[in-house]
């Protein structure tokens, strides 16, 4: 039997890889996929805690996270497509209009 702590460690490692991806990459699509990676790491942690506590609440939370992630991906990709139509380039370094 694998202790839940290992799942927490794996979730932490996946989360950190996602953070590094968000910082390092220039393509907004890859940054978006790194965010998905972080969401998944947190989901894994939630399921592990739910398993530990013997309650299905963790799984219900993960269900809501999945629904929000689906909505977020749809809106985010639409925004990226709209920006691409406007600029014909795809790099987060070009998108500084809202930066002070």
């Amino acid at each position, binding site marked *: *039997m*694998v202790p839940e702590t*290992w799942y*927490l*460690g*794996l979730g*932490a*490692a*996946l989360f*950190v*890889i*996602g*953070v*590094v*991806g968000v*910082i*390092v*990459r220039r*393509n907004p*699509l*890859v940054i*978006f*996929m*790194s965010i*998905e*990676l972080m969401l*998944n790491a947190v*989901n*894994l942690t939630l*399921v*592990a805690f*739910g*398993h*530990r506590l*013997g*309650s*299905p*609440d963790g*799984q*219900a939370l*993960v*269900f*809501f996270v999945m*629904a929000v*992630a*689906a*909505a*977020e*991906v*749809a*809106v985010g*990709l*639409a*925004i*990226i*497509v*709209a920006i*691409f139509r406007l600029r014909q380039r*795809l790099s987060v*370094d070009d998108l500084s209009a809202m930066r002070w």
Partner: protein
Amino acid sequence: MSVVTFAVLAVIALGSALGLVFRKNAIHGALFLVVNLGTVAALYLSLGAEFLAAAQVIVYAGAIMVLFVFAIMVLIPGKEETGPDPRRPYRLLALPVGAALLAELALVVVASRGADTGAAAPTPGGVEAIGRLLFTDYLFPFELTSVLLLAAMVGVLLLARRRAG
């Protein structure tokens, strides 16, 4: 679940996550992410969350990743992120930041191991338990989810519309 199975799944998950972050080609990254999501679904299964494992494969690996692959195919002609990086010194800072975050999280996990005593509680009753929970205690958030998805759909249609003139 045996330690060996967990180790194999963990190595695949970490390797595919690293592949997503460090491969230059976005399509390769998307396929690595599919592998990663499938592995996490297997881990859900090992934790007794059958419903989430199925939902993970259908929603994430199925719907969301298809959307990603479509967007990549439409938006990125050929290779991406070519040419010299104008902000390389800043990006190199990501490595110490990531290392610090990893150390912090590892510290939390290791420190919480002392509390990991006593027999694990019985596993929740799978699909039936989560379904019951969703339609009783979490009924209001569940309905809100449908409103959220509808709002997202309408918003996407509005954003993707071609402006006349």
